[in-house]
């Protein structure tokens, strides 16, 4: 009994060793596997932000009073709007918005200051480029808040609104989009590694004809699957460590929770993700087909349906239902919980159980499919 178990371990070790040699023989792919998290984190950490500021703005000031100039100055001073052009006439606004040179247009009518001085209601026209709906919504919010304060000041209306909202933001008080994106990105990175590396392993052996040689040896199906999975697990794990280190030290994302818990949940997720890659590889049998399926089955859902960036509650009900079977969803929730909220194990356990369940199911499917292919 012990002896057969030992033999099993030796065979798994042999397969893993063979796979490692094969990976090391292709240093370019290995280098890219480690470059991937660094590149993605850099792009998401430095280049990309959902925070809206420096909105290109064109202003048309027909009034040319001190009051209207003050309004323009206030927009610039807020930091959200940068005035790229002071228009000569109304038509210029059209050209600027059409060509995309400005996203926001503010048009101040002729007797703006006079009307306010007389105690009337002055009209102010605001046009935003709605084609980017997200930026447009946020910029309208900024504008109305700014104009509200401005209006209250210039009209001298001192009466405060009778109900005052008191806003407190938890977990990410400064609402930094970096803190929101980076933890979830770790899930995407690990899914990508699974998709790009493991999805080709079995397919490659089939295409090159070395699978028959492997089958001819005394190894059993689970041994092949585990043996092939282990080296990629190591790569994925190193990628995870790189990502967490970069997130904490370079991007200063707070890690409020326990690092050990993070490691355990990540390992469970990685096991399932790699298992999924292996299933794709076994089923596809061709590298071209495997790569295409992997993109759609692993990367796309992890990126779009996991809640990594796009709130699941905004999706239509059928997609919300689909997102429930996507492991990345649970991992993203755990990551955000551990990083930003410092959630205790009590809260994380339900997500972790699902991830474990997924990993086991995928492993069983991988074995079943592999057995069928052999016969």
């Amino acid at each position, binding site marked *: 009994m012990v002896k057969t178990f030992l033999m099993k371990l030796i065979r798994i070790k042999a397969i893993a060793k063979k796979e490692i040699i094969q990976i090391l023989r292709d240093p370019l792919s290995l280098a*890219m596997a480690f470059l991937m998290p660094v590149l993605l984190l850099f*792009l998401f950490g430095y280049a990309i932000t959902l*925070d809206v500021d420096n909105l290109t703005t064109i202003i048309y000031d027909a009034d040319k009073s001190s009051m209207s100039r003050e309004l323009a100055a206030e927009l610039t001073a807020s930091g959200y709007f940068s005035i790229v052009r002071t228009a000569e006439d109304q038509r210029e606004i059209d050209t600027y918005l059409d060509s995309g040179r400005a996203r926001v247009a503010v048009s101040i009518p002729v007797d703006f200051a006079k009307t306010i001085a007389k105690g009337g209601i002055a009209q102010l026209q605001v046009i935003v480029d709605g084609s980017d709906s997200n930026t447009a919504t946020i910029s309208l919010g900024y504008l109305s808040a700014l104009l509200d304060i401005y209006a209250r000041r210039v009209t001298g209306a001192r009466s405060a609104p009778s109900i*005052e*909202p008191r806003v407190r933001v938890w977990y990410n008080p400064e609402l930094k989009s970096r803190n929101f994106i980076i933890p979830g990105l770790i899930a995407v990175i690990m899914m990508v590694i699974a998709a*790009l590396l493991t999805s080709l392993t079995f397919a490659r052996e089939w295409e090159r004809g070395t699978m028959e040689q492997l089958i001819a040896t005394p190894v059993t199906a689970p041994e092949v699957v585990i043996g092939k999975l282990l080296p990629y697990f190591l790569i994925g794990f190193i990628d995870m460590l790189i990502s967490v280190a970069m997130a904490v030290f370079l991007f200063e994302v707070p890690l409020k929770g326990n690092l050990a818990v993070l490691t355990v949940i990540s390992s469970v997720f990685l096991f399932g993700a790699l298992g999924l890659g292996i299933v794709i590889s076994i089923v596809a049998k061709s590298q071209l087909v495997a*790569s295409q399926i992997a993109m759609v089955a692993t990367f796309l*859902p992890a990126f779009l349906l996991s809640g990594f960036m796009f709130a699941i509650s905004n999706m239509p009900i059928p997609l919300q239902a689909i997102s429930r079977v996507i492991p990345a969803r649970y991992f993203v929730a755990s990551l955000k919980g551990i990083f930003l*909220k410092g959630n205790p194990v009590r*809260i994380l356990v339900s997500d972790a159980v699902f991830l474990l369940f997924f990993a086991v199911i995928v492993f069983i499917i991988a074995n079943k499919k592999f057995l069928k292919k052999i016969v």
Partner: protein
Amino acid sequence: MVRSLESCLLKGPCLMHKALERIKQMVIKEFIQVLRDKRMKAIIFVIPVVQTLVFGFAVTTDVNNIPTAVIDLDNSFASRELVGRFASSGYFTIIASPTNSSAVQDLLDRATVSIAIQINRGFSADLKRNIPASVQLLADGTDSNTTTVAVDYASRIIKRYSQDIGPPVTLATAGIDVRQRAWYNPELKSKNYNVPGVIAMVIMLTSLLLTSMAVVREREIGTMEQLMVTPLRPVELILGKTIPFALIAFCDMIFITILGVTIFNIPINGPLWLLPLSTAIYLLSVLGFGLFVSTVAKTLQQALMATFLFFMPAVLLSGFMFPIENMPAVFQYLTYANPLRYFLIIIRGIFLKGNGFDILWPQMAALFIVGVAVFTMSSLRFKKRLG
């Protein structure tokens, strides 16, 4: 004399004809190879459909149905009225009404709700006595984007309510009336913004991956040598390898456009003929990059990873989802080398803004220059590798 003149005259067109024939054969061979696997046929058409559907439906930055908790400690007519306003706004879905603050903490920790509205005891009493009352908003800042919008919506609802119930303030007599309008996409629907972008993305992903893999595969299987001993010239080989995927990309473009118009009701406000023209220009650079990857990669594994390493930055630094103006200056300059940047402006201009050639020509010119540069460089590198 007459005969030699005739053959001389015919020689040019004849050579040309032969070259075209060779390219045609190569294209046919390529199609057979790609479509031999029945699953590939499905994949080529299923992938764009799946991507369009997911992007159209899932990638919505519109904020609505925000899961909300309400703690109404006042439980008066006024507080219930305010809660009712939240519920009927369409932005907030009230899914929990806990009775104490510690329950709220748990709901936010578990991400069951993303915003909590707390109305303290004495709310209606304060209102009656004309003392400023307050409403507490507790927001989960994890999703910074949604939170920004949600807090803005909540503040507006409260302000509106406060204006409706409050005494007529002096503000009404003197003030500024802000007329807001959103052009091109008046309802601010994010699908109108995303679906045209998917065309650009799908074209890039399919043609990049298929081109690079098609070449590398020949090398991996060892059939590249066989191709080289045929009378095919390097230019013909390059054209034969890229034309099939250009055609597939064109089909995908038409496919997604039809989907976008029929399922997602995306408007086409501009001249439609500009779409195939600019797609053709765009393909020049995409296929060029595919060729480039194929000169770097020796195995399919490398080709797949290199494609991805190229594709991700190209998408992220294009303005597809993240506005270019918000990027640091260095990255903004980088985007000028990105063909996707120009194509996105063109395609959104055609669909949403109704831009014509008069406005889009600088973008098309830039796209053309990038395309010619990339394709020429990659072709030269490809030839060198062959030799």
